[in-house]
């Protein structure tokens, strides 16, 4: 055992600590660094002399020397921070208000749509999307809405100007997300359940409850024995989770050419019945249009307005606020 070496280390430590207290500027800092940690410093000598010690001693002295070097390095880095004004020990009035971080905000429709999607994915629905410019075939004909049928009047349509004879099926701005029902069924084997969020378009005058573009969330569940009672269960679950409480709702007869039977769903909100969505059992002609055999399959489909749900949930009075992009409105969400 070589107590000398240990004493050396101890002395060196005391000395360095004392000197370090005198570091006041860059010059004294540099001098300190060179003297105690430099290539020709005493700790350097000490460390290089270790190899001459017997193994037994080396085991004791080595770690002690390394510890010293570490401590010195720490002093250096602390002093560096202190000199560059980064010391933790400045006066601070902790009662001052905290700085507000810059916050971004999702658009309220994004938030609502993603809430809706989450509820459905948690019930095993997949999420798919489709094109916003559609063909007349997918938007109408395949959904059992033939040309020159007054049912088309239920959907006021923006048509795309086309060069004559250029296309087989005219192009339009989709009036609902239902075309994705056909597109999905053409390429997927039942059973399946999907939701389709997306932007849709209607040619109509805008007011507090009508916009020329808005969002829908379409649902479709197809299998060997999917029933209207199943739809009731799914939509009831959706309402319960979306509104965080059990909501009173009702189904009324309605008509959409692509379902049979067709229903309208109302919910009771703040004492009033509000129309919330249209739904029904997939019409056999729709299965046929997607090359599926209606004898073997049943399914339900539904579609609801995202803005309408957002307006109810956030108590927003006017649908046009969603597209006015006033940041004072948007940053509330």
């Amino acid at each position, binding site marked *: 055992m070589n107590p000398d070496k240990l004493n050396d280390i101890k002395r060196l430590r005391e000395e360095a600590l004392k000197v370090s207290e005198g570091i006041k500027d860059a010059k004294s800092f540099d001098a300190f660094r060179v003297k105690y940690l430099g290539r020709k410093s005493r700790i350097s000598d000490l460390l290089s002399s270790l190899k001459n010690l017997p193994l037994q001693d080396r085991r004791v002295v080595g770690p002690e020397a390394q510890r010293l070097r570490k401590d010195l390095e720490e002093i250096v880095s602390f002093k560096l921070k202190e000199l560059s004004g980064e010391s933790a020990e400045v006066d601070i009035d902790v009662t001052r208000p905290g700085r507000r*971080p810059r*916050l*971004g*905000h*999702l*658009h309220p429709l*994004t938030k609502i749509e*993603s809430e809706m999607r989450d509820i459905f*994915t948690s019930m*095993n*629905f*997949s*999420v*798919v*999307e489709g*094109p916003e*410019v559609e063909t007349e075939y997918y938007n109408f004909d395949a959904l059992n809405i033939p040309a*020159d*049928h*007054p049912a088309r009047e*239920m959907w006021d349509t*923006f048509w*795309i*100007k086309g060069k004559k004879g250029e296309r087989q099926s005219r192009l339009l*701005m989709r009036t609902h997300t239902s075309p994705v029902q056909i597109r999905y069924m053409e390429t997927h084997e039942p*059973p399946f*359940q999907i939701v389709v969020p997306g*932007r849709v*378009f209607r*040619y109509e*005058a805008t007011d507090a409850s009508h916009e*020329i*573009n808005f969002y829908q969330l379409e649902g479709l569940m197809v*299998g060997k*024995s*999917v*029933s*209207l*009672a*199943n739809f*009731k*269960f*799914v939509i*009831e679950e959706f309402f319960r989770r979306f509104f965080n409480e059990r909501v009173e709702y*009702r*189904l*009324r*007869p*309605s008509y959409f050419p692509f379902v*049979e*039977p*067709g*229903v309208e769903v109302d919910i009771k909100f703040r004492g009033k019945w509000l129309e919330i969505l249209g739904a029904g*059992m997939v019409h056999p002609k729709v299965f046929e249009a997607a090359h599926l055999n209606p004898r073997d399959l049943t399914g339900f489909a539904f579609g609801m307005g995202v803005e309408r749900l957002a307006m109810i949930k956030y108590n927003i009075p006017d649908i046009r606020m*969603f*597209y006015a*992009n*006033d*940041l004072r409105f*948007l940053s509330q969400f």
Partner: protein
Amino acid sequence: MKFSYALIKKFVPGLPPKAKLTDGLNMKAFEVESSKGDTLDIKLLNRYSSAASHWGMAREAAAIFGRKTRIPDKELVNIPEDLGKVKVKISEPALCPRYSARYFEVPKVGSSPAWMQKALKSCGLRPINAVVDIMNYVMLETGQPLHAFDADKLAQSAKRKAQIIVRRAAKGEKFMTLDDQKFELDQDILVIADAEEPLAIAGVKGGKKAEVGRGTRRIVVEAASFWGANIYRTSRQLGLTTDASIRFAQGLSPYLVKIGADRATVLLSDILKAKLVDSKDVYKKLPGRELIEFDVTRFSRLIGVDLEPRLIINYLERLGFKVNVGKVKKDRFIVEVPRLRDDVTIFEDLAEEVARLYGYNNLPSSPPLVGLVAPEVEDEIRLKDETRSILVGLGFNEVYNYSFDNRRSNVSRFLPLDDARRLEIENPISEERRFLRPELVTGLAGNIENNRRTLDELRIFEIGKVWTPKEELHLGIGIHAVSGEPFLDLKGVTQTLLKRIGLTEFMLRAEGRTVLIESDHEVLGFASAGSGKSVFAELNLGALAELFSAEYEFKPLPKYPAVARDLSLTVRGNTRVGDILEAINNVKSDRIEDVDLLDYYDPTRFTFRIVFRAPDHTLTDEEANAELGRIIKYLRGRFNLEVR
């Protein structure tokens, strides 16, 4: 469509009070949109055509409340027919499957009785004279639109025969309606004509020529069936919607023709003492009986409730369907559809009738039985979500602009679009919304302009479809800052975003005041310095979705410390920071870990900090200096610069 409560009640003696009727209809048949006085406004929604009548609505009400109807739909037999007073020729049997004309002598055309006028007014119709009112009233009762022509005003043939021709209009043929509106017709439009000219636009509106007035003594009453699609098209083409055209557009049963004509005959005789002198009823073939098999098991599978066959039969019979009880099997039977319910053609239609009378709210709500498969979310949707959360984290607000826009920005670096290649709306809502937007940045520029007054600094983004003219999913980013260098923020945000979403291979290429973002020689987007205070970037997010791989792989943490060296340069000529950065990155060395611009005094003087590290040992000062030396040498060989 407007209905009179009193009139429905006339046909259903035990009808409940209006409020209860409204509720019953709402929950089991049709939505009552409003109710005022005697008038009920009911939304029929193209459900079925014969409901567009008080008799039809009375049958619904009776079925819902389990009451009996008292409908005066007695069929007339042995009426004078084919006596030569009136002739009918149908040139277009496809557009007019049935036409019935009845010839009456009318002693005097006065006013209609008060009760009839009251019913007409409740349904929004104006009383005119007894003949016209009876025509309208019969339409309200039965759903069959009727029209009366003054027989003496028709072009007369030799023997005072009234000649009715159902034909297509000639191109350019002129027509004036009863209320003096003038139209020019074409071959797509079906007209009712005499030997000389059109008397009416079939199924839409009567004309001036054969108008029935107070002096009329002989009339021809038309009850016809027209092809709904053609009437609908005509009505839209002419911008002329009438009570008749709305009903015809649904497609009325040809059976309704005789029902309407008979009812009119009874009322003309009762009220005006009119005498039926002759009649002509032209049709090829009427549809046969519609028989549909009802499968109780299939019903349970579709609707999700098990109902007793007896109950099902009861509901169907209440609605006028006939069930052949003798042949009732346990769970399958044949149902005959009432003639006027030609909307019912398949099993699902029958199932709807039963389910709605049973009451949708009485259905159980049962969890579906499905095999569990993890739900999928499309890549593009995930990418949108990821992008949104990154940008919101970086302090950006999301905006939603319209898909329609007439403006073009001058910063877009995607393919410039001339008007001919932009997607144009045939029926735009306004001039400003005539095209589909080819880029997002125009919308963002507008948003900044609108918000600038309330905020000094703005950070916004939008994710949405654009058309170039192909439909693409884009991301637009906009920053506005009164002070500082917003472009550097924009560029940094864009690069950070690309890295975070997992795009590793991309290049930034400067072009004037714009930086192009390229991958594989394809322009994926741009960031433009714009005016300096408002700056914009746009990325083709859809194209990115195909390139990115958001898989992270762990890299071992470095074992040895890094060494940093600062390199201050003064450059001459047109050398820019980006050129030097690129050059340093090109120096062959696996010890350069990071290069960053530390200071930028002016375009000729700046300082880089270069970080070196070796994986297997701590770099000595000498080694680090040697690395730096190599870099300097490389730069000197390429640029006119000086190391300070």
